């Protein structure tokens, strides 16, 4: 994984000014470190060797105070910039992500992906906080401070400078070397940890089942055994993994110790003065510190970069092509040889379907679950682009039409309509937000939803029964004037009484429009002019009633 993914700069512009600000702050921090060391070395020397008192030291103390305040302000400013930057970057990534998902459309967004994306867009990108507030500024400091420190040391003491300059590169070299060998082990250990947590979760969630079979108590021992095995395995990995930090710490502390001893010995022999010696002593650890901290904050970076990586992988998905024509012609809908394959399934969901739908007719699609009925509706809606074959409307390929324009001619009632928090009326108005209240009311009346029109709905439609939700969705259809109506099992989840009412509503909805409906129940099939039976993605029989 790269320490700074260039895509982050491309997709989240806020990263750019943050990086610039971090560099500026890094430079000033480096300058302050050098100034502080110089002042301290001078102050101590003056007091110790020249017997300076507080009065003589006033200038040094004032300057040192200013440097101290400066470092505090720089540290604060760095955090401030980090928080602002990461908030901005998260917003930019989230917006791009969701915008792109909408572009990719419902056909791309399957159930599991939806859950993962929700997590990614909300909590997932929060992992970038650590990356921006700790890792990135440290990386900047590590690439600035050592050079400036060395630059200050060159005129003071060449020998110490060379010692530091030679040992310093060992840190990144060893980091890379040890990192390579331990990375695989770490990943294995992490996988095991995930498996362990998963096992514990599986067992806890399955407690009622385990108790039924008298196997619950015995699992305590299994948990203990698995956890212990994991502990031993992980400790074996850690003994090696921690060696890397051991080596890094050894390099930096031993180097500091060696420099201190060497400087001390030259000082005894009079080949060096105290001021220089102290300067070297204070600055030497400062050269190693930022590099060491980069290693410490590495895990903060991986998590954030992994989240960013996930976002980028979505952003790099190619959205389906969009047609440009906005004039949707009237006329029959002709499906010829339409085939749809889902990536995770071996058999095609639709397999060479030929079907013609004449304006004004009511076509019912019947067949066992999984035979491709809902997929056929998705194709008509433009959610799913056929892998082969075409859908022609009034002589024009649907693929050449602008999908939004086409969908203004289609109204759809899904099997599980999704309702949004707000009033029922707001939900009915979904497609036409500026529809006048009476239009909404008459649509609700037609769909038998008028008696709960002002009910407030919770998140995801909470507070309404399945039947009520279906009637809200039906009201959306009534409010729309689209000539093509697609209904996916409009009477599923309904008891006998509501079913009869909804059937009556569907009959009224169908008047003067073309209707394609997916149906199981005989009562619904009776509404159709024509029943098309499907099996395993093929049309097996078309019956005119």
């Amino acid at each position: 994984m790269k320490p700074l993914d260039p895509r982050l700069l491309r997709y989240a512009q806020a990263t750019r000014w943050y990086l610039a600000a971090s560099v500026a702050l890094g430079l000033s921090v480096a300058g302050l470190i050098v100034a502080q060391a110089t002042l301290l070395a001078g102050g101590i020397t003056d007091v110790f060797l020249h017997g300076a008192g507080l009065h003589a030291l006033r200038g040094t103390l004032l300057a040192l105070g200013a440097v101290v305040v400066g470092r505090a302000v720089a540290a604060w400013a760095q955090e401030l910039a980090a928080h602002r930057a990461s908030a901005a970057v998260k917003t930019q990534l989230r917006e791009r992500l969701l915008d792109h998902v909408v572009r990719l459309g419902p056909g791309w967004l399957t159930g599991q992906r939806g859950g993962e994306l929700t997590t990614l867009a909300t909590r997932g990108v929060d992992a970038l906080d650590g990356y921006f507030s700790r890792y990135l500024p440290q990386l900047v400091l590590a690439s600035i401070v050592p050079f400036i420190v060395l630059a200050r040391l060159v005129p003071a003491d060449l020998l110490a400078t060379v010692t530091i300059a030679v040992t310093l590169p060992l840190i990144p070299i060893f980091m890379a070397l040890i990192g390579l060998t331990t990375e695989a082990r770490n990943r294995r250990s992490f996988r095991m940890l995930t498996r362990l947590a998963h096992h514990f979760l599986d067992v806890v969630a399955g407690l009622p089942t385990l108790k039924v079979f008298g196997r619950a108590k015995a699992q305590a021992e299994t948990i203990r055994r698995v956890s212990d095995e994991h502990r031993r395995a992980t400790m074996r990995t850690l003994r090696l993994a921690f060696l890397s930090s051991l080596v890094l710490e050894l390099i930096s502390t031993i180097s500091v110790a060696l420099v201190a001893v060497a400087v001390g010995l030259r000082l005894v022999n009079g080949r060096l003065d105290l001021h220089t010696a102290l300067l070297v002593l204070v600055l030497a650890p400062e050269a190693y510190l930022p590099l060491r901290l980069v290693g410490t904050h590495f895990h903060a970076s991986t998590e954030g970069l992994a989240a960013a990586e996930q976002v980028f992988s979505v952003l790099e998905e190619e959205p389906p092509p969009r047609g440009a024509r906005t004039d949707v012609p009237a006329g029959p809908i002709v499906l010829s040889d339409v085939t749809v394959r889902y990536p995770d399934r071996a058999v095609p969901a639709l397999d060479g379907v030929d079907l013609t739908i004449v304006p004004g007719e009511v076509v019912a699609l019947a067949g066992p679950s999984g035979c491709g009925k809902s997929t056929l509706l998705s194709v008509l809606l433009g959610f799913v682009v056929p892998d082969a074959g075409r859908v022609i409307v009034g002589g024009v390929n649907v693929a050449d039409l602008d999908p939004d324009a086409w969908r203004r001619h289609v109204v759809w009632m899904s099997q599980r309509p999704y309702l949004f928090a707000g009033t029922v009326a707001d939900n009915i108005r979904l497609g036409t937000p500026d529809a006048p209240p009476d239009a909404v009311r008459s649509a609700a009346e037609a769909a038998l939803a008028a008696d709960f029109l002002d009910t407030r709905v919770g998140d995801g439609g909470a507070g309404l029964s399945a039947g009520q939700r279906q009637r809200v969705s039906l009201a959306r259809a009534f409010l729309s004037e689209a000539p093509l109506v697609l209904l996916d099992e409009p009477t599923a989840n309904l008891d006998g009484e509501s079913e009869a009412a909804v059937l009556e509503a569907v009959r009224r909805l169908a008047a003067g429009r073309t209707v394609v409906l997916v149906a199981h129940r005989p009562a619904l099939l009776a509404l159709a002019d024509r029943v098309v039976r499907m099996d395993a993605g093929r049309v097996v029989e078309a019956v005119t009633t």
Partner: protein
Amino acid sequence: MLRLLRLASPLAPRLALAVLFGVLAAGSAIGLTATSAWLISRAAQHPPVLYLTVAIVAVRTFGIARGVFRYVERLAGHDAAFGVLTRLRVLAYQRLERLAPAALPVLRAGDLVGRFVADVDAALDVLVRVVLPYIVAALIGAATAGFLGALLPGAGVVLAAGLLLVAVGVPAIQHTVARRADRRTAPLRGELSAATVDLLRGLPDLVAFGAARRRLAALAETDDRLRRATARSAAGVGLGAGLVALATGACVWAGLALGAGAVRAGTLNGVVLAVVVLTPFAVFDTVSGLPAAAAQLATARAALGRVFSLLDQPDPVSEPAAPAPLPADHRLELIGVSARWPGGPDVLHDVDLALSPGRRVAVVGPSGSGKSTLAAVLVRFLDPSAGKVTLGGVDTRDLAGDDVRTVVGLLTDDARLFDTTIRDNLRIGDRGADDERLRAALADARLLEWVDSLPNGLDTMVGEQGSRLSGGQRRRLALARALLAEFPILILDEPTEHLDEETADALTADLLAVTRGRTTVLITHRLTGLAEVDEIVVVDGGRIVQRGGHDDLVAVDGTYRRMCQRHS
């Protein structure tokens, strides 16, 4: 927090080892700075090199020791942490085992289980990242402040004050600032997350009705408000880092100012001035991580609170100290039984039910009528609040719960399939079953043909919660497992819930076929196929309102007939 430490107490030796090496590592770092400062100051007086030998050896030793001690500390700390985690998990599990399922509504929602597990892990984090570093910092901070105080009292006092500011003051300030920022951003976060869920889950409806762009714009507007709110609080949140830098610098500055006065006054030997001035750098290096650690404390404490409040619930079922032996007679009888879930009102009132061997009874009623409570009482997941349940004439309260459940089995719609093979899932029903018996059970559940068609057969992994199986296959696999256990009495609680109608009808038919001749209670709100059972008990509002055969019940006006009419 104390409870966590008490839980960890058997691992005290390992934790103490981690603390010891932590102190040694930090001590070496401070020693390295202090002795090199002394060495250089002393060297400036040009003494014979011999006088410096001890200091030179000490500097080199500290230089090597620091890394080595740190290495041991980290190993010991992680080892202890894993030990605590194992212990915590086992203890939590043993407690949950007693509580499940009646006192654990948390089990009904998968994500809550995930949170519980994450909460347990958070407890571990507290120990390794907060408690241990604080103990090490307290010890080393006190020792260094004492040492500097001995050289120059004022410097010791300033260092102690600076350390307290970093270890206690900064976390307190950060906590207050973060809470204030949170009050501003938390509602926006919630709004944003709800809008995201809406957008993604409702995407088909939104796109179909051309409303996706509008939603997206509203969401972006919320997101922007969140960004601005976060930016406004950034100044306060970043204060901590500045204060740590300020405390470090102030101690160094005070060391020089106070030291200069003391050297002039003759109360401090000039040779140790550098020690007084430079040592704070090393000390603050070891404590600068504390504010970040302390920030985790609040979240971790909330997590711990949730874990303990769950574990502290009273047992839903009383286990007898000396359980009576399990009777050989498997006649199960409910006499005037009322029951309630922990903390709730009675939801089952005065129910009588007799299950003689071989008898099949259906319990029907609208949802919320107390049917599942009845199932919980029958398998002794709940004790009756009034009346009694007897097995072979013995009150089940005198029997061990696990013993009762060797006789009475339960199959629910949410029976868990574990993330392992078909074979291992089946063997939960009977550990010793050979393939022949597994296949027989699969055949009874009408699943054998499918299993045989799989390339890996019985060794096929079922996925998390059986996600690689269809809804119907999951139920049939759970049924095969229950059949394998050969419970003398089997309770089927809504076995076809959440299945589509065709699948549900087929499964019901197979269930009725396979339970013929076995003592069975079929709890359902669907009425398909009930003509086959010996007795139908109609429950409504927690009471038995009707009972008898299908034909008798249809003949009279009542709940059952109304349910039938609605269904057909």
